[in-house]
């Protein structure tokens, strides 16, 4: 496989293999907590892949993307709270709601560009954040516990089983990368990448770019909403903090760290970012004081992210 010769892709392939084997290897070496850690990383990976669709390939820097984690998660949480644990109801609703809100937010935000766009996506996400904080019935600040995971109603597939839960997440991660790959190389992706490069010119060849951007925004919102419903199931918990603005900032960071507008960058980025946080948090309570400047240095000196470091392109982005 030609693509694997690229060291950045090789790195990601190794990471994916690690993900795939962990539920078997971890108990064997007595470190089952890795299963939990990697499940979390994979969920973030899905969210990062979805952000990369609009940010890396579309040039749309959304500082409110984590809100879709919350929408997907809270839909499951609220339905479970009211006794609805049927996955066939929960999941389509979570996906539909994520898509709908992405449509509304995208329609508003995409009327602006540059910094205005960044700020509006941030502000709109804050709106939903405050909404969930003020929802006292559903836990407000403290969050909402979810007692039972989504039930598919079949005996052979239950998310209550740890392996099933883990590999469901893994399957969605693989699917999201696959979808991302096909999307980016398709006619649709062609328009998105061209519009990122020179929007005026795309319009001057007869393409109204707004509707393509909006579609991408909705697709990304849905994908992130799926990450959210997976998180709700895995953690059995949702809280407003899963969609606060530092979360959105971290998501952006993961995408940049892994290598923006590369296919596997977001997965690599999520992996490195979260592993680094775990390690640093182990050293000191005050790990942010190291992490903060680390982010600054990456931005200043390693702008192409890990993909850029491992496989520097001959042409600049």
């Amino acid at each position: 496989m030609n693509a694997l010769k690229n060291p950045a892709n090789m790195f990601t392939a190794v990471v994916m293999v690690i993900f795939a084997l962990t539920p078997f290897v971890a108990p064997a070496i007595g470190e089952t907590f890795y299963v939990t850690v990697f499940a979390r990383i994979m969920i973030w990976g899905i969210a990062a892949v979805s952000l990369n669709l609009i940010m890396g390939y579309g040039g749309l820097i959304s500082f409110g993307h984590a809100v879709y984690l919350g929408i997907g998660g809270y839909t499951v949480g609220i339905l479970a709270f009211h006794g609805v644990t049927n996955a066939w109801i929960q999941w389509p609703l979570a996906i539909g709601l994520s898509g709908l809100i992405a449509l509304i937010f995208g329609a508003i935000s995409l009327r602006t560009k540059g910094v205005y766009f960044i700020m509006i996506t941030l502000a709109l996400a804050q709106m939903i954040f405050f909404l969930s904080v003020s929802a006292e019935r559903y836990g407000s600040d403290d969050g909402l516990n979810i007692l039972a995971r989504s039930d598919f109603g079949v005996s052979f597939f239950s998310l209550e089983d740890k392996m099933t839960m883990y590999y469901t997440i893994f399957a969605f991660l693989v699917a999201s990368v696959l979808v991302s790959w096909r999307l980016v190389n398709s006619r649709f992706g062609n328009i998105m990448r061209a519009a990122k490069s020179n929007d005026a010119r795309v319009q001057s060849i007869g393409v109204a770019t707004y509707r393509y951007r909006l579609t991408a925004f909705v697709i990304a919102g849905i994908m992130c909403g799926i990450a959210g419903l997976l998180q709700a199931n895995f953690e059995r918990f949702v809280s407003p903090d899963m969609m606060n603005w530092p979360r959105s900032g971290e998501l952006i960071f993961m995408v940049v760290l892994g290598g923006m507008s590369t296919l596997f960058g977001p997965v690599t980025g999520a992996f490195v970012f979260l592993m680094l946080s775990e390690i640093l948090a182990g050293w000191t309570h005050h790990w942010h004081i190291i992490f903060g400047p680390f982010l600054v240095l990456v931005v200043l000196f390693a702008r192409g992210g890990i993909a850029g470091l491992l496989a520097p392109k001959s042409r600049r982005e």
Partner: protein
Amino acid sequence: MDYVLLTEQVLNGFQLGIILFLMAAGLTLVFGIMDLVNLAHGSMFMIGAFVGGTFALLTGSFVLGVILMVPAMLVIGVVVEMTTLRTLYPRDHLDQVLATFGLILFFNEAVRLIWGPEGLVVPLPDYLDGIVSLGFGITYPVYRIVIIVIGLLVAFGLYLLVGKTRIGMLIRAGASNRTMAGALGVNIPKLFSIVFGIGAVLAGLAGLIITPITQAAIGMGEDVLILAFVVIVIGGIGSIRGAFIASIVTGLIDTLGRSFLDVLLLLFLPANAAESAGPAVSSMLIYILMAAILFFRPQGLFPPKGAQ
């Protein structure tokens, strides 16, 4: 109609607007002139509160705390600008967002290291801790009036500075056309440091004067920051006049919304729905306003002429 409550909330809205203005003014100057998205502006708010508060506690005088905070914030602001932000000017906005996000993490943690996680309580001096009667049976805390007065003085001072002084002219030239201003011999790096320093002092002042009411806490700057960004987007980036009007409007809408929205909703909804929807909708009100304004006028209400 409870006029006492209404007046009180209008004044509260005004006071919130003033705090927002102090933040927004610095933000819009930095953004309009240096084209820098600075998320760490909220950190200046927090640092002003902690540093100024510490001076106040050490000297025993709140007023001295405010006075000493000014040069402290000026120094801190200029140092941050010269060490980190300067490298970000040529970068695109994404890089600036990310780098200043990293700065936020750093500052929050630094404050936690120095002052501990509990925050800082800065008590009001007795002579400011009273209530004054405004007639018609309306009473209002003295200190909140002081805040409003300070804000109006600062607004007037900025108006004089930007409109009537040589530095102000340089600032306006820089906002209008940075390359030309540089070509005409204006020392751009020095100008930027000064502008950033002013912004840091304003943010620090806002943070400090709010502490007797809300306490100094880690991360206090971030929520105000987002509101401040909403304000400058509504007002028009680079416009101080726009920032002032948008701040006051935002403060009023937010405060009056929280107080009276459930009353308004009772006209349309049954009682318990209005009671639960009230707080939820009022916290979203400001963002709905912003979305509406941007939908019809993406460049804001008062975009400065000639700026990009």
